[in-house]
């Protein structure tokens, strides 16, 4: 079985869509930034913001409004209650701010039981996570550091193996991917947690994979067809690697989808970030990295070559 079967030398003119792609990417990023501004920043998970999360399972479906009122009566107005996972799981996630009366308390679980047991005689406290405010700030710094380190290493490696033009265009594509995923989290009002950062870095690695496969082919074709205009070489290279790009995206999406649907609530957002990231990473290696490489080559042609013509 085969699809996308091209004759040798035949290609799709991907670069003719570069304006459209630029507008699309621009709008996508702009929407994300607008949403972040409108929400007054990202909605950080407790990893970054500090506080306590308690995951509680009830034996009967909990009534959130009733519970909220209940906590309010006990003088705890700052608790955040939300259902967690499927309604069938009957689970809630209780968010407490740093320094709340229950906070990092020694008696957090027994206190919660005391409060909830009269109404819900059977409940199970399944998970408690507390992050001190200092740790939150530290993790924020490490997250930014990790992303910068990854991008820096990539820039260095590609510049050594290819050219700085490719290095810079790969970075542009990666920053694009990261911004789109972050924007998507803000638009959908999802919490931005540490695992999402891990997903982002995986997306960086993945998207880069695609970009490098295309760049590798460009380099090979440049050696093979010295007379061809640069644009055409790029189009040809993208076309030649297109089926591989789509198949790998496909298999990766299959497993990510399996994680997203079956992996459970705890890694749901992680899988979601990967889902968006794999899609956008595939797109960006075709429509972002390559056009930027063309642009940079026109802007600063490599020594000893004629400027590329369109």
């Amino acid at each position, binding site marked *: 079985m085969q699809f996308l079967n091209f004759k040798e030398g035949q290609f799709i003119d991907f670069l003719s869509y570069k304006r459209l792609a630029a507008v699309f990417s621009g709008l996508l990023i702009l929407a994300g930034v607008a949403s972040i501004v409108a929400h007054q920043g990202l909605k950080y998970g407790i990893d970054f913001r500090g506080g306590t999360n308690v995951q509680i399972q009830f034996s009967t479906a909990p009534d959130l409004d009733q519970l909220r009122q209940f906590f309010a009566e006990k003088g705890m107005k700052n608790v955040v209650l939300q259902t967690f996972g499927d309604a069938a799981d009957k689970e809630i996630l209780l968010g407490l701010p740093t320094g709340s009366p229950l906070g990092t308390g020694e*008696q957090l679980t027994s206190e919660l039981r005391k409060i909830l047991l009269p109404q819900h005689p059977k409940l199970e406290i399944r998970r408690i996570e507390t992050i001190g405010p200092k*740790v939150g700030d530290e993790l924020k710094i490490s997250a930014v550091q990790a992303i910068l*380190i990854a991008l820096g290493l990539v820039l260095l490696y590609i510049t050594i193996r290819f050219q700085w033009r490719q290095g810079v265009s790969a970075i542009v594509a990666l920053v694009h991917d990261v911004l789109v995923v972050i924007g998507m989290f803000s638009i959908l009002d999802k919490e931005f947690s540490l*695992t999402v950062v891990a997903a982002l870095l995986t997306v960086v*690695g993945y998207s880069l994979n695609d970009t490098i496969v295309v760049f590798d082919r460009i380099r090979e074709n440049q050696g093979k067809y010295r007379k061809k205009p640069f644009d055409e070489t790029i189009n040809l290279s993208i076309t030649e690697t297109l089926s591989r790009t789509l198949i790998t995206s496909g298999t990766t999406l299959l497993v990510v989808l399996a994680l997203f649907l*079956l992996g459970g609530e705890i890694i749901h957002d992680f899988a979601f970030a990967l889902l968006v990231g794999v899609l956008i990473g595939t797109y960006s290696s075709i429509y972002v990295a390559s056009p930027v490489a063309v642009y940079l080559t026109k802007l600063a042609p490599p020594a000893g070559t004629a400027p590329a013509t369109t």
Partner: protein
Amino acid sequence: MDIKFKGGIILIVLIAALYYAFPTYRAYQPGVDPQTVDNKVNLGLDLQGGMYLDIEIKVEEAVKEIIRRTAVELEDLLIDEQIDFVEVRQTAGSLIVEMEAGKKVNLELEPYDRFLVQFDQQPEGELTFLSLKEDEANRIRESAVSQALEVLRNRIDSLGISEPSLQKQGANNIVIQLPGLKDRDRAIELIGPQAVLQFQIVNSNATPNTYNRLTEVVKYQEVWDKTTNKLISKRPYVLDKKILMTGEFIRDARVRIDSRDNSPYVALSFDSIGADLFAKITRRNVGRNMAIVLDDKVQSAPVIREAITGGEASISGQFTVEEADTLKIVLRSGSLPAPIEIREERTVGASLGEDSVEQGLSSLMIGSVLVLIFMIFYYRLAGVFAAVALIFNVILIISILGAFGATLTLPGMAGIVLTIGMAVDANVLIFQRIREELKRTENPRAAIQEGFGKAFRTILDANITTLFAALALLQFGTGPIKGFAVTLSIGIIASMFTAIVVTRFFFDIVYLRKTKLHKLSI
């Protein structure tokens, strides 16, 4: 490379992989206690349930405490030697000795010279500044952390967790991992308190509004309502500033029940030095009240009726039996050299851990089966090669994790799932290349060779850059993210081997050995 040689290498790797993956397989069979098996993949706390704590030792408090004690010691010495001084003041990192006008004390002479071991002096007129030497301060900080480690280990032992782990992390942090912990609150109650026990005399004539701020201090006794767990009142006590004795001489602590009202109390017995000291203190203060202060809170303040010479004391309060038991353990293990702060807590119940394992495994299974089906469907026999290589890959990852006794977390499982999706990429690159070559040439043999050759460089570049991303994640220390980074890195490296070497070997034995090769199933 010679086929036999290649086959030999693959066989060795396969046998080694099976050998190292086997303990993990055996450990998690029903009816087997995983702890009895060595060299297995350990389940992270998020998968088996338990508590992860990252605590910070407030080492600066330990430094301050040393300076405070030195100030008291020096003051006592100056009084004993009958030197005219105004006061010994304590600042953040130093002491200031203020002499009366015209008086001087030479700290370089006995008996004061011992203070100069830890402090640098700088005289300025009537004032002498004593600042703690930097290397001394560092020594105090370091020993505070190692002492805390010791004390916490003792306290945790009483929880009866079979494999607790305490590790120093960074300069001032300790990471505690308690797999299988059931009672979360009790663990925090045991780990949390500094447990500094102090004996101070109560001045019954002074009130909190009229007391001598230079020599006295107010500390409170808290009264809690046991049913609502609310603080009802705080009773103030005016105490002599001087701390007569601390908990360092405690030899043993036990919970006893008071026969009069059936309330539990904690009975202390001191070692011989402590017993002598306690006898001396009580003899001097017969008729007065002595406050027993724990972590700056007054527990009780009984009247001293006569000198207590037996080296025994008791702490009563409104304890529940459990609280008394906790206090007993904490006092037995000794006090922490400095207060601690819980920076991070992650506690997972056992049932949630089981659910996570199940969900992780099912996404792993279904994800891989889908990928395998696709590969076989799309690339036929070559797809079968890739599928076998992929299964080999998973065994290899498990064996490497097992050989190092690594810990698998839920994100780590996600890393393996992801690796499977990405591992086939190398095969896809190779197979697409072979297909391209087949269009160009009539010779399938050359197509295979060209396909592998040309794809190799791309695979290398692509995988190395993905590794960079995984390495950037490793800086997150011990958290769950690290588990993800580790499995992803191992997965990438293992996939290069299986996709390039193992698949190639299949092509070699199935196709390249044939004398007449017309068609490839790809």
